[in-house]
């Protein structure tokens, strides 16, 4: 059934710290690495070593420049994958029932043997979280590494999504966002976690932590700040006009 569950027992999801992400794309690589050889169809590439390479990814890292009113611009690296929305528009549009949201943990999944590859779910997703695999003709999306997080064959430390496990900056956190006492929920509360495109009404489970204010070393000191540039007068240029031959040349050329 592609109707959404009234409520889910848990809300498993990611918290992504835009302050900490260094834009290394390690999460992109580990995601592709894990998911191309585990749950469902592989994530194919087309013309991977040629002139026009493309491929299926479940996680991509954008970079944005933010220019404040005053001060230097900031570069924000912005990983984006499925947000496992509570009100997931991708699920209800599915004509075959291939897309569904799990009642037990809220993960949005695609049953690939039911998917006809119509692409409508990707149309309905405002975040670009779903990509049709060009080789398999079925819709691929983040599974929250459902085949890792419940996998008792893996050491406990590995029972988190591949992107979270691999992030060298600690910018990705995994947990139950439905439980207000969970570490991720507390992190969100503490740092003012936010929804992407809240006006779309999708109620995303994944949360983004905004970048913290940067220090202001880039600001030049105001002239009245004599404490700072006490030696500045001594560093002023001594000669404001050239002397000697150059001075003569300068004057002569001015006259011409």
């Amino acid at each position: 059934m592609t109707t959404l569950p009234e409520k889910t027992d848990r809300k498993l999801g990611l918290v992504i710290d835009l302050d900490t992400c260094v834009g290394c794309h390690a999460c992109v690589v580990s995601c592709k690495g894990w998911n191309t050889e585990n749950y469902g169809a592989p994530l194919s590439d087309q013309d991977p070593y040629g002139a026009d390479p493309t491929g299926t990814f479940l996680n991509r890292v954008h970079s944005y420049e933010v220019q404040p009113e005053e001060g230097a611009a900031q570069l924000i690296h912005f990983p984006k994958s499925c947000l496992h929305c509570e009100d997931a528009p991708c699920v209800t549009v599915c004509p075959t029932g291939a897309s569904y949201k799990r009642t037990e943990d809220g993960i949005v999944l695609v049953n690939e043997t039911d998917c006809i590859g119509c692409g409508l779910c990707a149309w309905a997703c405002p975040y670009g979280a779903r990509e049709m695999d060009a080789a398999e003709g079925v819709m691929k999306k983040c599974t929250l590494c459902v085949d890792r997080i419940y996998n008792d064959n893996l050491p406990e430390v590995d029972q988190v999504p591949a992107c979270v496990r691999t992030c060298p900056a600690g910018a990705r956190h995994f947990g139950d966002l439905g439980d207000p006492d969970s570490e991720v929920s507390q992190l969100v509360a503490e740092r003012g976690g936010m929804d992407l495109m809240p006006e779309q009404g999708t109620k995303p489970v994944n949360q983004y932590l905004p970048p913290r204010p940067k220090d202001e070393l880039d600001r030049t000191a105001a002239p009245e700040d004599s404490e700072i540039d006490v030696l500045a007068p001594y560093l002023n240029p001594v000669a404001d006009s050239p002397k000697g031959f150059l001075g003569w040349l300068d004057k002569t050329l001015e006259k011409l």
Partner: protein
Amino acid sequence: MHPAPSVIIFTTLSGLGFGLLFWLGLGFPAVTGWTAFAFFAIAYALAVGGLLASTFHLGHPERAIKAFTQWRSSWLSREACTSVAALVVMGLYGAGLVFFGERWALLGWIGAALSLLTVYTTSMIYAQMKTVPRWQTPLTPVLFLTLAITGGAILSGEVTAALVLLLLAAVVQVIWWQRGDGALAGSGTNLATATGLGKPGQVRAFEPPHTGTNYLLREFVHVVGRKHAMKLRLIALVLGYALPFALLALPFNHVFALLAVLSHLTGIAASRWLFFAEAEHVVGLYYGKR
């Protein structure tokens, strides 16, 4: 949005086909025997041809039967169900006209209603998309339904109705375009809400996630054709509405009627191409595009 030929052909032809079935169901023109057969053959060729074209863009058309299951939630599934229901009911009604010379009026009315319902479900697939503000308006079903009824009137030779409907459809078309041009800006979704980074300052897409293209850019960010949008709108207005109107307003002649149909079909195909090519999906914002 990528203007996929299969979807343009599908919505244009099947809209026209179900439009003709609507008129036939109401008993216009009142035909029986071989004449009825010809009318029904044209309507089915258009409606079924369009539906078949739509399966070409599926990754797995062999599983299409599963698309009949989710009518409770999915407009695409509803479209599959209503289109088959309309074709079956109109098939029985048509058989009565062709083979028995009998008009089973009730069946015809039900078939006509189902034909319109099919066009409505098609339009709702687009009109439900909050991600494409240009489409998300009740005007989209109004446009699709008006065009289907208008095309059906031209094909069924209901000249007076066709003339009135062509004027009406042209007005709806222009209003739809007008509204659409401000839809993305008016939707409240922009790069600041998409990234949540609007508070610290002005956001600009600095670097995309990859140097090449991807499925999202191919499917949702179509910029090339928009350059000629105004010219194409004019072509759509002239071929789709003005020229058929002029041809039908002249004393009736089968050649003129055929030309009116072909001109209308071409114009509506151009309009439908724009329907996709001009539509901005909000995911483009993440790439600094629209």
